[in-house]
């Protein structure tokens, strides 16, 4: 072989992207139109067509169920040269995926089925040991603007309970998204329309033969963006939630999900498949509750034991994603998922003579409440509810180091569906007292040459304390002292902490208190006889929460909290403070700040309080929030001027 040609061939291979695809005038038109609307995107769906046909079948234990068969077509066009993406489709034991095919345009500008098969791999979330979620996907490369490919696939939901939500948006812009539900007239479904406001979604319902046909369509749907600190898409984007309410099979009437009662009955049906053997738990319950006499003390002992001794390792294969592991297995294994932990805790509490019940709940990722939506997508978590003197306590075994009586932010204000045999209770988990989630930092400094010396003390309560424990208790014990020093340096590299002291960090019920002597260097600038001191040495700027111009989602802080700082600087009697910074006070429903410098003789005190009382900044408030951040930043940029008297 001619060596030079060989090398050139290698060069060719290096850049080989020879297109086997073609495009039509329609593709070009669609691509041009979408490029004008979405100039930053590299590809778009010119068409998404989803059709779901409902029918009847047999489900778990031979029970009658409604089934759903989906046929979907997606056509993609490149909006720029060199567009790479993956087209993927998830499936699991409740929804099978068939005929997932890839089509390209041939030389006659027709779509031709490619002979390649999709790749297939597990799609288990991080933190789950095993589940049945898998994904099939194609890697796609579109070389030229206007190039088009098509995908088609069929889905079969063997039980319509697991067919819940349909979104109009996708990870890419969609020029035309059509959804069609074909429902036999002997079946009654409910379609809940969520977040439709502000979107021009066309909808219709017609009778076609023996079917009722529901249609929805949206044009020019913007893509989902992966944004940090975002709540779930269900808060922001339009979607429909589909529930089969009832159907008849001959003369037999079958009930689907018409109310929260039906949802509960299904959960409870699965829960009853869990064959607990409480006898095996007795020794450990006796041991854990030894010496405890009040219901609260017994409950606390059991709650903390489960938090501390059961690791989160989840097996969620098929119905195992819905039926809890038995309490005896969880106890033996010392690991499980939320259902298993809740089940064990419930059984242990019962054995201790307490009134405990398994409970289904949706975390804050899910915006719906029981009663307003009757579909499985409302719940994604399981806890235990304990009644003491009629008051419900919500115990979440997966929430490590949380004190008894406090609820994790992720379940606060959410509805909890509590097992009560043939009936159920519905409660709303109370939100935390906003003032309770606080980090209070007090620093007392004096000027020593060019160094600020003194003490710092940090007190954490509520969720701030729990967050601290959740991190601290999982770092290697031989690094914990170092961690405390790092924590007390408050993110300031120039702070040197000596002799740190802590509260009892084995006790999750009391506030976490850390304090130590500090030397703070490089905070004083000397110009002649004047000094400029930065006593606001650990400002919280929240810069990572600055909204970008096209941000789609609200900001989620994962907690509602308050930071309170008090910093005091003393100077020699021969000196005085000049140019005292102006105070700042801002109040809005979702964010507040107050900060002021006060001088008394040779002492200046900076007091700051910042609160995010709802843990959420809404998109409609982004302008005010941006202004808040700017003002906060400007306040944080103040130095204290010191000069001779």
């Amino acid at each position, binding site marked *: 072989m*001619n060596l*030079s*040609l060989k*090398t*050139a061939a*290698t*060069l*060719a291979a*290096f*850049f080989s992207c020879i297109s086997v695809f073609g495009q039509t005038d329609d593709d070009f038109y669609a691509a041009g139109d979408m490029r004008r609307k979405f100039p930053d995107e590299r590809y778009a769906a010119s068409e998404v067509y989803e059709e779901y046909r409902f029918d009847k079948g047999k489900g778990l234990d031979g029970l009658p169920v409604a089934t759903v068969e989906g046929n979907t077509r997606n056509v993609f066009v490149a909006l720029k*040269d*060199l567009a790479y993406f*993956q087209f*993927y489709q*998830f499936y699991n034991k409740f929804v099978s995926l068939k005929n997932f095919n890839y089509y390209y345009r041939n030389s006659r500008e027709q779509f031709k089925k490619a002979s390649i098969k999709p*790749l297939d*791999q*597990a*799609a288990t979330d991080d933190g789950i*040991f*095993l589940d049945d*979620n*898998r*994904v099939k*996907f194609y890697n796609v490369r579109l070389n030229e603007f206007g190039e088009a490919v098509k995908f088609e696939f069929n889905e079969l939901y063997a039980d319509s309970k697991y067919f819940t939500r349909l*979104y109009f948006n996708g990870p890419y812009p969609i020029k035309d998204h059509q959804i069609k539900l074909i429902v036999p007239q002997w079946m009654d479904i409910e379609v809940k329309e969520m977040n439709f406001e502000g979107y021009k979604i066309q909808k219709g319902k017609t009778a076609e033969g023996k079917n009722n046909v529901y249609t929805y369509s949206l044009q020019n749907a913007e893509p*989902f963006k992966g944004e940090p600190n975002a709540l779930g898409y269900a808060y922001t984007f339009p979607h429909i939630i589909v529930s089969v309410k009832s159907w008849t099979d001959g003369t037999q009437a079958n009930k689907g999900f018409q109310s929260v009662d039906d949802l509960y009955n299904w959960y409870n049906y699965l829960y009853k498949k869990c064959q607990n053997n409480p006898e095996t738990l007795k020794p450990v319950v006796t041991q854990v509750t030894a010496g405890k006499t009040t219901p609260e003390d017994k409950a606390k002992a059991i709650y903390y034991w489960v938090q501390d001794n059961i*690791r989160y*390792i989840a*097996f*969620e294969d098929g119905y195992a994603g*819905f039926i809890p592991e038995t309490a005896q297995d969880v106890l*033996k*294994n*010392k690991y499980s*998922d*939320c259902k298993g932990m809740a089940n064990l805790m419930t059984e242990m509490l019962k054995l201790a003579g307490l009134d405990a019940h398994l409970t289904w709940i949706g975390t804050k*990722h899910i915006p719906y409440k029981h009663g307003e939506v009757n579909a499985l997508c409302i719940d*994604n978590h399981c806890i235990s509810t304990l009644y003491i003197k009629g008051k419900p306590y919500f115990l979440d075994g997966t929430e490590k180091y949380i004190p008894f009586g406090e609820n994790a932010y992720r379940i606060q204000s959410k509805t909890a569906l509590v097992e009560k045999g043939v009936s159920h209770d519905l409660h709303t988990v109370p939100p935390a007292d906003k003032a309770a989630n606080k980090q209070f930092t007090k620093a007392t400094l004096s000027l020593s040459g060019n160094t600020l010396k003194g003490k710092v003390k940090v007190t954490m309560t509520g969720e701030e304390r729990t967050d601290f424990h959740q991190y601290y208790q*999982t*770092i*290697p*014990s*031989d690094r914990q002292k*170092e961690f405390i*020093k790092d924590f007390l340096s408050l993110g300031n*590299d120039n702070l*040197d902490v000596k002799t740190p002291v802590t509260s009892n960090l084995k006790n999750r019920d009391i506030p976490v208190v850390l304090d130590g002597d500090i030397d703070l*260097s*490089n905070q004083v*600038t*000397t*110009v002649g006889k004047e000094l*400029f001191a930065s006593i606001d040495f650990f400002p919280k700027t929240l*810069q990572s929460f600055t909204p970008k111009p096209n941000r789609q989602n609200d900001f989620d802080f994962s907690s509602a909290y308050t930071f309170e700082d008090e910093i005091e600087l003393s100077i020699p009697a021969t000196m005085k403070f000049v*140019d005292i910074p102006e105070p700042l006070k801002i109040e809005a429903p979702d964010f507040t700040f107050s900060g002021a410098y006060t001088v008394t003789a040779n002492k200046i005190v900076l007091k700051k309080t910042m609160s995010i009382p709802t843990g959420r900044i809404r998109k409609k408030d982004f302008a005010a929030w941006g202004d808040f951040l700017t003002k906060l930043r400007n306040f944080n*940029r103040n*130095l*204290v*001027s010191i000069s001779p008297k």
Partner: protein
Amino acid sequence: MKLSRFILMLSATLLFYATSFAQLKEEQLNKLRLNVQSFLEDKDADFTTNTIPTGWEEQSAVIIAQKTTMFFDQKTSFRLFGKSDRKVIIMEKERRKIKLLDNSAVDAFSELYFDVTDTENGFDGKVIKADGKEEKLDLNRAIVVEDNSDVPGLFRSYTQSGSKRYFKVPVNGLQPGDILDYAYVANNEAALRDNYMEFVPVYYQCHRPYSTMKQEFEIKLDRNTFLCSKSMNGAPEFVEKEQGEFNVYSWQDRNREKLKDQNFVNEYLLLPMMKFQIVFSSKENAGNLFIGNRGELKSNFTPEEYGKKLGTMYATMNSSYNNALLAQVKYHLKKMDAFGIKDDEFIKNCYYIIRHVCLMNDIEISSGSFAYVFKKLMDDQKIPCNIMVTAANNLTALKDVIFRSELEWFVKVKDKYVFVCNNMSNLYDMPTYTQGNTAYNLVLGKTATIEPATLPMATIQDNGLEYVMEASLDLTTENLNVTSNQEYKGNSRDRQIYTALMYENYVPLDWKTYGGYDELDELPEPRRDALNERISKYKKEGQRLKPLYMEKELKREYPEVIKYNAFRLLQDGRNFKKPELKYSEDYQLGDFVRHAGKSLLVSIPSLASHQLQIKGDERTRQYDIDVRYARQVKWTINFAIPTGYNVLGLEDLQNKIDNETGSFISTASIQGGKLVIVATKTYKQPRIGKGSWPSMLQWIDAAYNFSQKKILLRKI
């Protein structure tokens, strides 16, 4: 319960299994247990204790004992027709007993991984509770690992080869304070295609992530398998345990504290470490292999042995692979009409054409292949040159080389050294790992010999790095507008060049760096045009991605990058005549300004970013210091003084700390409406004794404190 998900980034390269959620059958589990039973239940005294030494109770975990055994045996299956099937059968076993003292350690060992590829593999274990009660692992819950890159190194065998199938199992009943005792048996085999086979060398540091009471290797070898091993820095030695049909060697280490992190430590050369390699050879003391006589535990080679072996190794480089490479290079030389030109030009062309051929063929050339090809080209042109070897000084000293893979081959020509090229290197570059090394000059002949030599060190100037920054303050936004011109030389360039050339279009233009010719011209026109169009698209895409990439890089240096405006590559540093990497960036930075009344304090010195800060325990030094190479970094910052302001506070910016280890010198002055800050930080020596650490801290501290200073802008 199931959390919904919508976005998943997928890797197309992952292995996948069509059968999902695969679990092992009962008979497979029984076999796994049975195959490891005798090893796990071995009454080895070190595994019988459950007590850890006083003083280690506060640690995260303590390894009570761990033992790794390896058994190598050649097997030949004779065939009536055709070649015999020859292979080395390897059985590796490992048992680890570890006390888990906290949640972190429990999390780390919450799931165990094991290899089920071979039917004779084994795995089992148990949890020993504080009261001595034992709980067996529940292997019924083991599931297949779909992506082998998920398997932590701790659970991979040293001798594994080929594709593997792993399972993972959650450890049942595990709580802090428990002892986990588990073991695996992994069988591997390696097909023998030659008369020898070298297994991957093992570099084993005695300090482990957890303090260790006892650690042991036991290696059992058949007659044709050889052990080479060396222990350094106080590590115990391998000893011969048995001789006969099989030779057994043992290595044991006791009561070793856990590994501690420290800056500037050349771990392989300073910390206690043992290294070994297993080599199969049908011939003892084979000339081209680093082995001894049959049954001999080889730890050292005499200079004569080195000479002979290096000579034999060089002779075996006359391979079809190397000669094909040589032929490609010669083709280019001939086409360029480069034979017969001046020696210096010829040397240059040879180097860059080898680099070009490797680049275009996506070859990472070995130092041996490079040296062979390069010397052959010199021989063709009758330019005298020598083959030399050294060893990477972050791996081993040349005197401690006992594996062939530790050798770095190079060529000395016209009193200069030519090391193996990479995609970014230039002729006569001295890689960091060679500087100041001992080397051997290989004198080829009937019996090759070696002559020791010392390689030069790069100078401070050779590795210079210079920033010239023009900065101005936008008084409205209080952001800093910066234009930064950067120039990197020598080893400083080597560190930065991959970042700087990311998304740059240097591959199709590589031929220009040595005055070659465009190979695309040799292609038929339609093909060439198509490729040129494609290259043009990649170039355009690169232009889009480059600023995004550089902005991310910049964010590592400065806390608040407001905007990244432009990147300009001025000189790509891949050229003999212009080996410096030069580029310029425009960007806007925030958070540089503080207020004091109407005055502004601006952190201009922090433009000299990333100054090392040494705090706490690191201020006392346990080990000698290795900063890899001498260098000087220079910052010239020209800050335009905003109209209506005076600059004050320059006194603190004047520094001069200069000692034998290095220096930090800075000046600040007003020149024509600009504040001019010039700072240089110099690492004078690559390797410094730990006793000089206080001297080094003086200028490291000075540089850090300088970077924290502010200047005062006072309203006129």
